[in-house]
């Protein structure tokens, strides 16, 4: 089954071509939806088969490569178009195809009646094709192919409703912003690849990581490579400097946000960091940078999430914050924990977005949570699944969120230090608070929508079935990674499964200072207690007496505004980077430099010659005598020269 892996990318490509080229003619939405979802479903089965087959193999033989064709061999560069099937890529493929399939099914319901239906499914399939390339790639260039491919699909899907307004501008402006910010990240990634090629003379994962582990390379080169790769990761996974595009990505339809901006694409950065773990491990300084950036992003995004009133915006900032957690885990060396969180996050965040989608669907495209309220009785299934996901994300023990988040907090404390754990716990508390604020404002409390033209209704089965499956996964998902402290060494199956991938990186890192179990249990209880208290406080405030929220926000007016406007980061970028470049190049580069300066010289020379010809021609006065005079002047000069040269 493993060497059929190329089908998992070929099928989505076929899906894209069929829907893309003949979609308009097929017209029947059922058929298009079927084609779209079937290709992903079959791919999922193939990946599952490969997963099971790899499980059967002994540990050393679990990573094998499927070669397709030689892509680029020029001089020292030998790039083959090949797929690497090992524990890490299989895990990610399972997430991508699994969650992808559910979202495809969901979208059949959600997008019904939309005239661009066929286009939507074509783009979704293209996205899965690109994502699978990214995840299965055997070398950095194929990974980069997938990397930019997903960037393109996110551009297409964010700007899907190209004629709709979105906040100040249009959806296509948001799409452009996403693509450009991603491109800035890719710029860093490209430079990282060049440096890798220069130092290791290859871009193939196996060779690069083997050489990285073996021969001595200066610490600084590793640092630079890691830094460049991390810049690429921040671009793609929306971390501190380049996170501005993710909130705007909510301009796209909700299944898009679920698939791309929650489950798969944004985790590409985390996947890349953990794939190149050996490089990051050999640059401890950059490891701390990754951890700190992850932590700050988590805290900052969570704080913004507190005050957002658009349901999708709240979830978007929550995604940014959870991604911060994953990078925190990677930064402190717990690579398997970060991938574990990727998986659990994929389940409950996709569920939350799809839940939000069905709420919006039911509320006739109304996204402001202040206009919801009391939807519990109108949408029982959606409410139930949404509530489970909220429990999971808040880290309530027993659900998947708790296991992955606790693993991260514990390794943050073990390797990063108490401060890391403290900020992590506070962010967890904030997460719990704003999630339950969202739930209570939406499903509890009095109904704040006007009844005569808004009749909330439950979504059709096609949409609720995926919700239920995801809810089950959110609950069950955590049990494959039980904490060692309670269930002994092999409790954490997930870590065992990924352990061979990170072995070289691990022995480079000095990890796990000796910490007693007691500390772990103590910290775990403290963080859980904090989360639960935040939950009750949120329920208390937003279910019964919302005016408490009002007077808090009035009291801290300035701080509230700061959070509402997202720390004015967008405005800062606009003023500091976009405007100067645009105005500068328009006013100075084009109008002055190009037109006036260079063209000025060119036309200047031409007119100089023109005017001088106008002047010189005046010598021809027309009178024969003056001609004779000038001839005599010429002769006199010649004779003078003759005498002088004697």
């Amino acid at each position, binding site marked *: 089954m493993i060497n059929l892996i190329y089908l998992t990318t070929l099928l989505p490509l076929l899906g894209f071509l069929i829907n893309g080229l003949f979609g308009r003619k097929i017209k029947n939405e059922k058929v298009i939806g079927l084609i779209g979802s079937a290709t992903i479903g079959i791919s999922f089965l193939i990946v599952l088969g490969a997963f099971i087959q790899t499980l059967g193999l002994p540990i050393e033989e679990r990573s094998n490569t499927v070669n397709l064709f030689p892509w680029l061999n020029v001089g020292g560069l030998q790039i083959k178009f090949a797929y690497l099937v090992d524990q890490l890529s299989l895990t990610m493929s399972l997430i991508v195809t699994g969650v992808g399939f559910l979202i495809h099914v969901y979208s059949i319901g959600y997008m019904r009646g939309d005239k661009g239906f066929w286009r939507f499914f074509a783009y979704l399939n293209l996205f899965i094709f690109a994502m699978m390339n990214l995840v299965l790639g055997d070398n950095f260039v194929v990974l980069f192919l997938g990397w930019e491919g997903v960037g393109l699909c996110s551009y297409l899907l964010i700007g899907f409703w190209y004629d709709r307004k979105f906040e100040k501008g249009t959806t296509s402006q948001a799409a452009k912003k996403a693509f450009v910010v991603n491109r800035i990240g890719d710029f860093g990634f490209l430079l990282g690849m060049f440096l890798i090629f220069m130092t290791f003379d290859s871009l193939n994962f196996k060779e690069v990581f083997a050489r990285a582990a073996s021969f001595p390379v200066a610490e600084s080169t590793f640092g630079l490579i890691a830094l460049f790769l991390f810049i690429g990761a921040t671009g793609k996974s929306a971390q501190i400097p380049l996170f501005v595009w993710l909130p705007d990505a909510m301009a796209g339809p909700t299944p898009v946000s679920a698939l791309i901006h929650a489950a798969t694409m944004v985790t590409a950065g985390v996947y890349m960091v953990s794939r190149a773990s050996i490089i990051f491990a050999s640059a401890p300084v950059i490891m701390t940078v990754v951890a700190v950036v992850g932590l700050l992003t988590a805290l900052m995004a969570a704080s913004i999430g507190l005050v957002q009133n658009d349901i999708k915006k709240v979830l978007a900032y929550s995604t940014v914050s959870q991604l911060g957690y994953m990078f925190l885990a990677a930064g402190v060396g717990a690579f398997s924990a970060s991938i574990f969180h990727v998986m659990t996050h994929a389940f409950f965040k996709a569920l939350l977005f799809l839940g939000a989608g069905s709420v919006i669907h039911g509320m006739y495209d109304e996204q402001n949570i202040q206009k919801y309220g009391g939807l519990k009785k109108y949408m029982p299934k959606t409410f139930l699944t949404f509530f489970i996901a909220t429990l999971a994300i808040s880290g309530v023990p027993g659900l998947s969120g708790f296991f992955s988040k606790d693993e991260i907090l514990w390794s943050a404390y073990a390797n990063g230090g108490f401060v890391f754990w403290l900020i992590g716990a506070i962010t967890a508390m904030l997460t719990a608070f704003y999630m339950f604020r969202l739930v209570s404002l939406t499903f509890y409390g009095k109904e704040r929508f006007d009844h005569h033209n808004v009749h909330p209704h439950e979504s059709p089965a096609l949409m609720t079935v995926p919700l239920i499956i995801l809810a089950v996964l959110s609950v069950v998902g955590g049990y494959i990674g039980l904490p060692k402290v309670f269930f002994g060494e092999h409790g954490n199956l997930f870590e065992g499964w990924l352990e061979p991938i990170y072995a070289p990186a691990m022995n480079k890192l000095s990890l796990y200072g000796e910490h007693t179990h007691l500390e772990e249990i103590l910290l775990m209880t403290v963080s859980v207690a904090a989360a639960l208290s935040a939950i009750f406080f949120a329920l208390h405030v937003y279910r019964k007496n919302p005016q408490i929220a009002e007077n808090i926000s009035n009291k801290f007016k300035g701080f509230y505004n700061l959070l509402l406007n997202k720390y004015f980061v967008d405005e800062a970028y606009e003023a500091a980077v976009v405007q100067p470049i645009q105005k500068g190049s328009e006013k100075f580069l084009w109008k002055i430099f190009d037109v006036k300066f260079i063209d000025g010289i060119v036309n200047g020379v031409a007119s100089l010659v023109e005017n001088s010809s106008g002047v010189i021609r*005046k010598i021809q*006065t*027309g*009178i024969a*005598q003056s001609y*004779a005079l000038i001839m005599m002047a010429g002769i006199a000069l010649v004779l003078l020269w003759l005498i002088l040269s004697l």
Partner: protein
Amino acid sequence: MSLIPMEYYLILSAFMFCVGVAGVLIRRNAIVVFMCIELMLNSANLTLVTFSSYLGNSIGQVFVFFVMTVAAAEAAVGLAIIIAIFRNKKTVNIDEINIFKW
């Protein structure tokens, strides 16, 4: 050989030549300008004759005959042109003959 050294003749003819050139540059009347050109040619003749006598061979003198015939031909043609101009524009003053300029 005559007693007068060759240089005297040469200086005389050079001087005559300069007078001719000055006449061409200064006088405004076409006919007078033409006469000055004839003067220049004759000064050249004088030089030729001087060299011929002092060098002892007759090539110079033969040359003078040709120069004189050419000068005559030029005179004929030149005056015809000046008459044609006079018939057209009733003037022979060179300053007024300047349709073509710049």
